[in-house]
């Protein structure tokens, strides 16, 4: 019987940095789990502990029936015997070996014919044909990534660990490789743990997601759920929700809550009963805010806020509009939308937000 991976451990470093992982679990199903958090929060250390390259100070790491690490005096299972595919951030291809020999490195001991067959199969599968004799230094970033992935996959690992797989690529390659990688991960039937600090990567590649900050896991859930419904203020900051404002629940009736925020009143879906609190934080994703120029029009959105435009700033391919609606609110529009609306600073607008897009977090007094 396979229960997948279960890990709870503590890793301390000399300079008092502590990684404390509690209840990290990867189902036996071949899904992609994302470990999401800012740079330096300990994500890579978690992967290294799981691969057996770093030894935790205490705790347990179990894989199915196997004990990989248990602090009770047992020697940890060495990386050689974990059968884990590890792809580090800079891919770590062996610079002195050809692409073909890099990929075949883990097949040592197999008959030469079978080894060649499996390497050729992996190269075909990842679109690396014709690069057999090249050295890693002569490959593009995307090719290096696929070669590193091929090297990890030919040994048929039981678990795949990917550390920032898209980080080493430049922006144009990144989008293309992200789509390729998503297709590949879907076709593989290997449970995968993927580390990233990029929201777009996390949403595109992950089925479920853990939010991590300062060495601790904060929240687990479906990737898009976690991004729109963080469990607490810290998680909201990590997933970078644009508008987070303190508010107060005035009443709940008919499955809807009325919340006072600044000078405005909003309608939202209420909190769970067990965490029901009067004092809350109101979280609104900027891309969920619709702007209408001039006075409000009848619409299905439960929240229609009159406000003025305070700022307009380009943010990647979008424009971020800062509004004053009785509280500061951010909206994300396309540049075309801004142009067609002749949106300028000081304009009067109405902001439309559907009730389910307003997420409430309990606020301790």
């Amino acid at each position, binding site marked *: 019987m396979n229960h997948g991976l279960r890990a709870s451990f503590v890793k301390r470093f000399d300079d008092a940095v502590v990684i404390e992982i509690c209840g990290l679990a990867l189902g036996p199903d071949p899904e992609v789990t994302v470990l999401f958090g800012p740079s330096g929060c300990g994500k890579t250390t978690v992967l290294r502990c799981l691969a057996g390259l770093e030894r935790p100070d205490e705790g347990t790491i179990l894989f199915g029936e196997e004990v990989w690490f248990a602090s009770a005096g047992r020697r940890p299972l060495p990386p*050689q015997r974990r059968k884990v595919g590890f792809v580090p951030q800079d891919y770590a291809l062996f*610079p002195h070996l050809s692409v073909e020999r890099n990929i075949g490195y883990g097949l040592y001991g197999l008959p030469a014919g079978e080894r060649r067959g499996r390497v050729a199969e992996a190269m075909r599968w990842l679109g690396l044909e014709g690069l057999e004799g090249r050295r890693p230094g002569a490959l593009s970033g995307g090719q290096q990534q696929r070669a590193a992935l091929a090297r990890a996959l030919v040994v048929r690992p039981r678990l795949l660990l990917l550390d920032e797989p898209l980080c080493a690529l430049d922006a144009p390659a990144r989008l293309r490789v992200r789509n390729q990688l998503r297709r590949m991960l879907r076709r593989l039937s290997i449970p995968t743990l993927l580390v990233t600090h990029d929201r777009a990567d996390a949403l595109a590649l992950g089925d479920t997601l853990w939010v991590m900050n300062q060495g601790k896991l904060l929240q687990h859930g479906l990737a898009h759920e976690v991004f729109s419904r963080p469990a607490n203020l810290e998680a909201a900051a990590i997933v970078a929700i644009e508008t987070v404002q303190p508010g107060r629940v005035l009443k709940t009736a008919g499955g809807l809550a009325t919340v006072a925020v600044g000078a405005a009143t909003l309608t939202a879906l209420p909190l769970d009963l067990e965490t029901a609190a009067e004092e809350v934080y109101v979280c609104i994703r900027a891309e969920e805010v619709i702007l209408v120029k001039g006075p409000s029009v009848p619409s299905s959105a439960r929240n229609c806020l009159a406000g003025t435009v305070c700022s307009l700033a380009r943010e990647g391919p979008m424009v971020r509009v800062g509004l004053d609606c009785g509280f500061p609110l951010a909206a994300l529009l396309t540049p075309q939308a801004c142009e067609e609306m002749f949106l300028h600073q000081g304009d009067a607008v109405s902001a439309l937000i559907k009730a389910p897009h307003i997420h409430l977090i309990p606020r301790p007094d």
Partner: protein
Amino acid sequence: MSAEDWQLLWFTGRMAALSTCLVLPVGLALAWSLARARWRGKALVEALVSLPLVLPPVVTGLVLLKLFGRRGPLGHWLYQHLGWEVVFTWKAVVLALAVMSLPLFVWAARASLQEVNPLLEQLARTLGAGEWRVLFTITLPLARRGIIAGTMLAFARALGEFGATIMVAGNIPGQTTTLPVAIYYSVELGKDSRAWMLAGLSATLAFLAIWATQRLLRRPKR
């Protein structure tokens, strides 16, 4: 060139080669443990290995003479258990050359071993490779340049060693005399032309060693 000169050349080359063969495994083990492992007494061993580099060679020779002489602690043991006489034999020549060239090899090999990215070794382990396989397929090939350079430095040093050799091995023609020693005694006896000829031989050997190193260090063609 006389038969005697050929013998001298052949003997010196053989002794230097033998000493290099001895330095290579010992030096690699030392360089690896100094570069990678953490252990007690590391600083002491490091200092001991490097000592012949900074001490006058004659002093190193004196220490070896006293250690390996018939009544010296190591010499006594070797004579009793293996029946080996070391001092003033060809064994003493190899010993002196090896001790004098070891630090050069260890310094070069150690530096290049430290350059090897540990992540590459760790990755090889996740692919199922055991420690010996990691060493022979990842670590040593990546440190290749430093190891080759160190080997050649050690060999060249052995070819030219004088001070320590003369202390432990003396000057027994046909048995312990090496090129540098022969040059010294030729000048001493006023045979300047022979000294010059031997000096020329010495220089030729040195050039050959440098040339061979450069050949080996040239980046492989694709």
